[in-house]
């Protein structure tokens, strides 16, 4: 697919193979629009995914992903092409998402307080849909809702570990958390999730 996408534009530097990130960065620095499009295509899931899991708002996540890529493009001159591109892009996206959340917090109160069971119940998409009977789909939705209800810091750690599959060292680099503490904080986040899911199950049992 990448080779086809490049067919009508510049001849790829690596003929027959997808260009490497280094090649794409070099071409983007020369204002090659095809290279920029390919770079965005390659990393849009990662960038959009982290924005979505942090903000819990698909429209905001798309906007933030757009901004993150734009800012990355503007900062390409200062990027060390010898370093991996993905963590750098994620860093920009995470900063955008966290700044967005700070702005949201300033503008309105958080509503994720009070009865945790209730707020989790509101977020489970399948609850009002009688057709949503597949246990696995409901379980996924419940877990996603529980992650969405986590405090931002834990939500970020969980997302980086289980969505982006980053190592503890990479997570430490992204978040500034000491590497020795990453495991502990991930464990705490998982404890919170277990508690939230257990509360949700109790709420389901009470209501049934």
């Amino acid at each position, binding site marked *: 697919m990448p080779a086809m996408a490049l067919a009508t534009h510049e001849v790829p530097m690596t003929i027959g193979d997808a260009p490497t990130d280094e090649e794409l960065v070099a071409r983007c620095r020369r204002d090659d629009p095809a290279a920029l499009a*390919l770079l965005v295509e390659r990393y849009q899931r990662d960038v959009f995914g982290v924005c979505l899991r942090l903000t819990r708002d698909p429209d905001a996540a798309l906007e933030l992903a757009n901004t993150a890529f734009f800012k990355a493009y503007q900062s390409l001159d200062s990027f060390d092409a010898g370093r991996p591109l993905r963590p750098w892009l994620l860093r920009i996206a995470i900063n955008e998402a966290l700044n967005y959340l700070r702005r949201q917090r300033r503008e309105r109160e958080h509503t994720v307080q009070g009865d945790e069971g209730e707020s989790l119940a509101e977020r489970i998409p399948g609850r009002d849909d009688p057709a949503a009977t597949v246990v696995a789909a409901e379980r996924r939705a419940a*877990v996603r809702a529980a992650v969405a209800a986590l405090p931002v810091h834990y939500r970020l750690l969980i997302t980086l570990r289980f969505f982006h599959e980053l190592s503890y060292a990479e997570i430490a680099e992204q978040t500034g958390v000491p590497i020795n503490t990453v495991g502990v904080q991930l464990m705490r986040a998982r404890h919170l999730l277990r508690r939230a899911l257990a509360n949700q199950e109790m709420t389901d049992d009470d209501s049934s």
Partner: protein
Amino acid sequence: MTTHPDELLLTRWLDGEAGAAPPGLTDHLATCDLCRERLARLADEAAALRSALALTPVELIALRRADLPGCVAAAVASAQPVAGPGRLHLVALFSLSLAAGLAWAVAGPLVEPGLRWLGRLLDLTTLSLLVTVRAAVLMIETVAGEPWLSLGLLASELLTITAGLLLIGLWLQQLRPLTAASGAR
């Protein structure tokens, strides 16, 4: 390992972050049903998290429809520096004044001396003001790191400023005899 490993150790080992297996861990897991069950639960939990956090088909469709590559390209294209209206107006005014000054320099000898002097003074004042403002803006923009549209625009702005300065110099030279003459009267 005679005691059961704590959850942190099991998690780190499951995540591949514990380095080599701590001494006795694999032997303990081979013989301890409880810890094997704990490990299995942790692995299931990790799998559930991965599955839940993966982008859903709906989210993927939304991402595809949003055409992020197109949006980013549009944002990059619209952010290319273009001459702002202020800068273009200044350039236009400067050019008009320059043209008027050149025209006056050509037609001036045909006009009465008194009016000629006034016309040149007005042109001199206007051109000096514009040259000063234009040079100041140029310096401020350079210091502020404003991107230049192109070498062509930069060259044309430097040329017009240089031409303006030369013209001011010429007029100042021409004004001297006129002022001397009016002083002598």
